[in-house]
């Protein structure tokens, strides 16, 4: 089963609880999707504080209209709401910059951005990196997460550049296999 299909809380159940004004369920949903949606929005509008505002508004609207909602998938519901808000924002900006003639094809946002709920991605990366040997994992994190150059890693860990190169190469090979299904283009 793909991670994207994992639904820790059944959407149907969530909707039922929301309609009963269950604040605890609302909080759970909020925390599950929030950071992922902000990053998703940020990929489109490239403005983190505004992205946070957009996502918060989406959740507030969810609560305010909870009695009349018909949601099959919260994931697609949130993505659609955030995407619409982002596009609205970009349109408004375009109106403001009316001298700049540019017709944006908003359809490009349809499938381009990845959406990951934070716990999903956490789990995915954690699992993949877990499978590396400890030394290999350490070097890989320094290289890919901390953005250090090979020479810098070699210096830090008192290893030869050659060893560092080999370890990174190993890690990448392993991750490629581990995450194969998410790297499909």
């Amino acid at each position, binding site marked *: 089963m793909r991670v994207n299909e994992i639904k820790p809380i059944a959407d149907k159940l969530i909707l039922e609880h929301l309609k009963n004004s269950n*604040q605890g369920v609302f*909080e759970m949903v*909020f*925390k599950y999707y*929030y*950071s*992922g949606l*902000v*990053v998703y929005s*940020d990929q489109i509008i490239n403005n*983190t504080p505004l992205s*946070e505002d957009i*996502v*918060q508004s989406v*959740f*507030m609207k969810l*609560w*305010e209209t909870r009695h009349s909602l018909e949601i099959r998938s919260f994931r697609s519901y949130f993505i659609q709401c955030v995407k619409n808000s982002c596009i609205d924002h970009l349109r408004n900006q375009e109106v403001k910059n009316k001298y700049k003639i540019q017709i944006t094809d908003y359809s490009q946002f349809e499938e381009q951005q*990845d959406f*990951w709920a*934070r716990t999903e*991605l*956490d789990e*995915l*990366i954690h699992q993949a990196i877990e499978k590396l040997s400890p030394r290999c994992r350490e070097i890989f994190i320094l*290289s*890919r*997460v901390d*953005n250090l*150059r*090979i020479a810098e890693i070699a210096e830090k860990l008192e290893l030869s550049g050659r060893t560092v*190169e*080999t370890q*990174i*190469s190993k890690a*990448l090979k392993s*991750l*490629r296999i581990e*995450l194969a299904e*998410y*790297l499909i*283009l």
Partner: protein
Amino acid sequence: MKRIDIDQLFVNAFSGIITSEEQQLLDEWLGESIENKRYYAEQKKLWELFSLHQKMQRIDEHKAYQKVHSKLFTPKKFNFFLLLQRAAAILLFPVVIAFAFYYYSDVKHKEQFATVYNTAETSLGMRSNLILPDGTKVWLNAGSKLSYPVLFSDQFRAVKLSGEAYFEVKKDSKWPFLVSSGNMNIIVSGTTFNCNAYPENNEIQTVLVEGQVTIANESTTEVEELQPGELATFTKDSQQIIKEKTDLQKYIAWKSGKLMFRDDRMDLVVEKLERWYNVEIEIKEKEISDYIYTATFIDESLDQVLKMLSLSAPISYTVSERSKQDDETFAKQTVKLFGKKKNNSNKQIKI
């Protein structure tokens, strides 16, 4: 080329720090095979996954939830403030109007203030000094009255004088100082001068000590400018201003407690003495009025002054007791001046 160098090129390319040289190497390598391109694409996706993950970790969903929670689930507080805001907006409207009205009427207020006068007054036999709201120093001679507004207007500093006063006007060339007495005005900006304007006298005398003053007759629009050491005499009957050089000391000595006469007629001397000592002096023989006197008295009693006068002129005098009046107060002392030869019934001091 080694795979490992390529990995570093990827990292540089993904994080946007790739140099054009490196980019060229990368492009060459990518062109070598489809495998290479595929590998690059996979690595890019992997990189993106990591950077997404990094970004997510910087977002505080707990704090964000607090914010949303307080907006959604504390409706009473929220509504209360909203209500308060609305109430404030509604209340603000009349406040703005009231304020505008108040502000508008404040302009009028100021004008009203300007017409509210303080009056400094000295009785006969007394002298005093004061400082006006603008910092001008004023010495008031006996039996004088100075009215000045509680608040000077923006255009000028106007005071009204009845009697004699010595002014040291605070310098402000853009804020003229105006002394009016009857229909004679003295306009200055920052000078020192003495003005003698007793309403019972026919003349208003102004001497300039320092600076410059303009004397203006309101009714004839005659204007004279005075230089230091000059005296301007405005005669009420003829409505004319006569300018002449004079001895300043004679006019301003009173300010330092000196009574100074310089070639003055006896009637003028008598007039000054009356105010200075708060007495009534009667000239019993007409020719006495024409006598000319020169003398300076400092801190002397009326008795001593009268003695000195009688020494330098053929005058004798009598001083009456202060008689008790009907209202239990005492009347003014009365001094009677006679020619030397005359004898008197009252207590008489013969010289």
